[in-house]
């Protein structure tokens, strides 16, 4: 029997969102004996529910509630209502993520100091560093069972990786392997080994990939300290006259509004919904939204400099078989301004099924230039670029004129590439194409960025309250019992897939919150 807490129980920690940040935080707190109510907008889907079908799975898992877009990024034209491809479900985007789990490089914690001022960018150093984070990364890697960390072996390479590896070596790259992946190469932590099924983005039907949905969430519930209320959409965070948060209003699955009292509120709805909620919670005391004395709520949105390279060969590759993203080149992740940009990027294997390839290879494209590419789908190999993009003040989330099904203003996501992003992307396209040409590719395609999967920075962490929204613990500078627990607290984006860092920060934050609660500081 899962524990239920009373709506007027003001001793609970309320966590909004149950993904890599909120889901992990909920379990970590519950394990420490802290009572938690987790409110999740989506429903609960487990491996038996997942489907090996791209569009059907998208319909099952993706966040498709209204959002609007603006700015010069191509996503605003091709996918105007879908700025991000992320999940609305218990476990959040940890059902959909690829599993790539790599630590930030040391210098990436200090982007401003390392790169210096970059025109048009709003760079800042994180108030934490690699030494501070090392033990938390280790706990995160152990939790997720990351391959090539601890004594965990790497995954075997699939066909797509073999082409990728051959090309990388031909170009002289050295740091090439099947990645540090939160996908079991051997049975680990009651989850089985990867069966090379593909469809990593549609939810792993074997549970070989770590997801909070079937690890942290049920384990937290088993303690009796965690109640997850699914299909509960938070409308507003409420505060008292002293300026402390005191609870949240949310709509249940039937559209009824409830008030859940709270001792502490942790926001973990991702980089769109978290700032949207803080802005929608504006009051006479906080007219610009909660935790927003700096004006930084919703600003500095980052989505990684991305893009893909697909290439056609004269013989079959069958890239869709096996683990989708078990392949990485890390040689370009370094900071080396001689390439014409600051920061670095990773190259990672990627494949899409035929239906998504048709949608994403060249959105809006048609005619034989497009269809002859798909004709050779079987002979195609693919990779994804993921690099550090520049935080910019005008990139971010504001409240739209459009309202959602609850009558709440939705997030408008504005984005323009920074010249550094463009220079990095073009350089990465060129290197990716060269890799495949070195293996004999007959045709290559620099494919534009998809709707964002890495959404970062809209409630950023800063040493000084005037520079950001939260301190080094993810605690808001303005309101001591209000925390941000997702990727929106990222000060800068680094070149690495963000989930491992979100998890490490959540484990560390749970430790801090439990300690501060015991000391009666919050």
């Amino acid at each position, binding site marked *: 029997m899962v524990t239920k807490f009373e709506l007027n129980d003001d001793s609970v920690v309320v966590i909004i969102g149950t993904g890599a940040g909120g889901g992990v935080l909920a379990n970590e707190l519950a394990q420490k004996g802290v009572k938690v109510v987790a409110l999740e907008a989506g429903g609960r889907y487990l491996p038996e529910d997942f*489907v*090996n*079908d791209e*569009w059907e799975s998208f319909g099952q898992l993706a966040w498709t509630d209204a959002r609007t877009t603006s700015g010069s990024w191509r996503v605003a034209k091709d996918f105007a209502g879908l700025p991000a491809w992320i999940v609305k479900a218990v476990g959040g985007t940890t059902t959909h993520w690829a599993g790539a789990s790599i630590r930030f490089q040391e210098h990436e914690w200090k982007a401003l100091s390392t790169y210096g001022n970059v025109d048009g960018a709003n760079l800042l150093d994180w108030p934490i560093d690699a030494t501070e984070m090392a033990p938390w990364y280790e706990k995160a890697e152990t939790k997720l069972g990351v391959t090539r960390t601890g004594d965990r072996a790497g995954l*075997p*390479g*699939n*066909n797509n990786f*073999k*082409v990728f590896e*051959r090309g990388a070596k031909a170009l002289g790259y050295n740091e090439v392997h099947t990645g540090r992946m939160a996908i079991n190469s051997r049975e680990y932590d009651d989850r089985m080994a*990867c*069966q*090379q*099924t*593909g*469809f990593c983005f549609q939810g792993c*039907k*074997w549970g070989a990939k770590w997801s909070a949905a079937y690890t942290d969430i049920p384990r937290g519930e088993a303690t009796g300290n965690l109640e997850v209320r699914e299909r509960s959409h938070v409308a507003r965070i409420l505060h008292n006259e002293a300026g402390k948060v005191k609870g949240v209003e949310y709509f249940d699955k039937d559209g009824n509004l409830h008030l859940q009292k709270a001792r502490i509120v942790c926001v973990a709805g991702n980089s769109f919904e978290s700032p949207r909620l803080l802005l929608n919670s504006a009051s006479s005391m906080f007219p610009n939204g909660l935790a927003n004395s700096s004006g930084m709520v919703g600003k500095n949105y980052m989505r990684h400099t991305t893009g893909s390279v697909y290439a056609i060969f004269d*013989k*079959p*590759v*069958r890239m*869709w*078989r*096996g683990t989708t993203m078990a392949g990485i080149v890390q040689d370009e992740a370094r900071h080396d301004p001689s390439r014409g940009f600051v920061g670095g990027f990773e190259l990672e294997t990627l494949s899409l*099924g*035929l*239906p998504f390839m*048709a*949608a994403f290879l060249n959105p*809006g494209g*048609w*005619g*034989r230039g*497009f*269809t002859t590419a*798909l*004709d050779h*789908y*079987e002979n195609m190999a693919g990779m994804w670029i993921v690099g550090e993009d520049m935080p910019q003040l005008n990139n971010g989330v504001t409240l739209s004129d459009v309202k959602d099904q609850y009558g709440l203003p939705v997030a408008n996501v504005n984005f323009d590439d920074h010249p550094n992003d463009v220079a990095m992307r073009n350089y990465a396209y060129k290197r990716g194409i060269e890799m495949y040409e070195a*293996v004999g590719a007959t045709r290559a395609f620099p494919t534009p960025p998809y709707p964002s999967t890495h959404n970062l920075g809209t409630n950023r962490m800063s040493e000084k309250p005037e520079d950001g929204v939260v301190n080094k613990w993810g605690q808001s500078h303005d309101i001591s019992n209000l925390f941000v627990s997702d990727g929106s607290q990222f000060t800068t984006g680094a070149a690495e897939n963000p989930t491992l860092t979100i998890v490490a920060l959540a484990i560390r934050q749970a430790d801090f919150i439990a300690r501060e609660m015991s000391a009666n500081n919050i």
Partner: protein
Amino acid sequence: MTKIDRKGLTRRALLGRAIAAGALTVSGAGFIAAPDAAWALEVSVITPEQMATLLQMARDIYPHDQVGDRFYAVAVKGYDAEGAKEMVAAGISELNAAAQAIGHPDYLSIGWEEDRVKVLEAVEATAFFQTVRAGLVTGLYNQKNIWPIFGYQGESYSQGGYIDRGFDDIDWL
């Protein structure tokens, strides 16, 4: 524009299994069919000529010579509906006007794909073209029956994934 030939057809809409070859037959009786009668598509709201135009448009937007007409027919048959009737009529009028502007009687009578593509480029910015194109992205490529033509294998969990079925079987590197 094309002969009327009801031979072997029934009033029921049927989408057969054989690959259609050659030009379509527009029947006066409310449906269009492949010349070999391998499949037929009945229309009840829009005209057979309009459906034939949509079908040709679909082929010209996403031409795959190894993919039979019946798959394209599935992708556009939803336009035979009251809600789409006006848009289809107006859109096809525009399309035919664009064809006439460069000296053709109408879109369907243009023999070469590259000439029809010129007409499509002239209407590319219209809502009609973009609706048809965007609808095809899922309407055509998300038909499971089409995937084997491209070598894509689809669902794999029920077969145990590819761990014993060639995830690393590349032999030409």
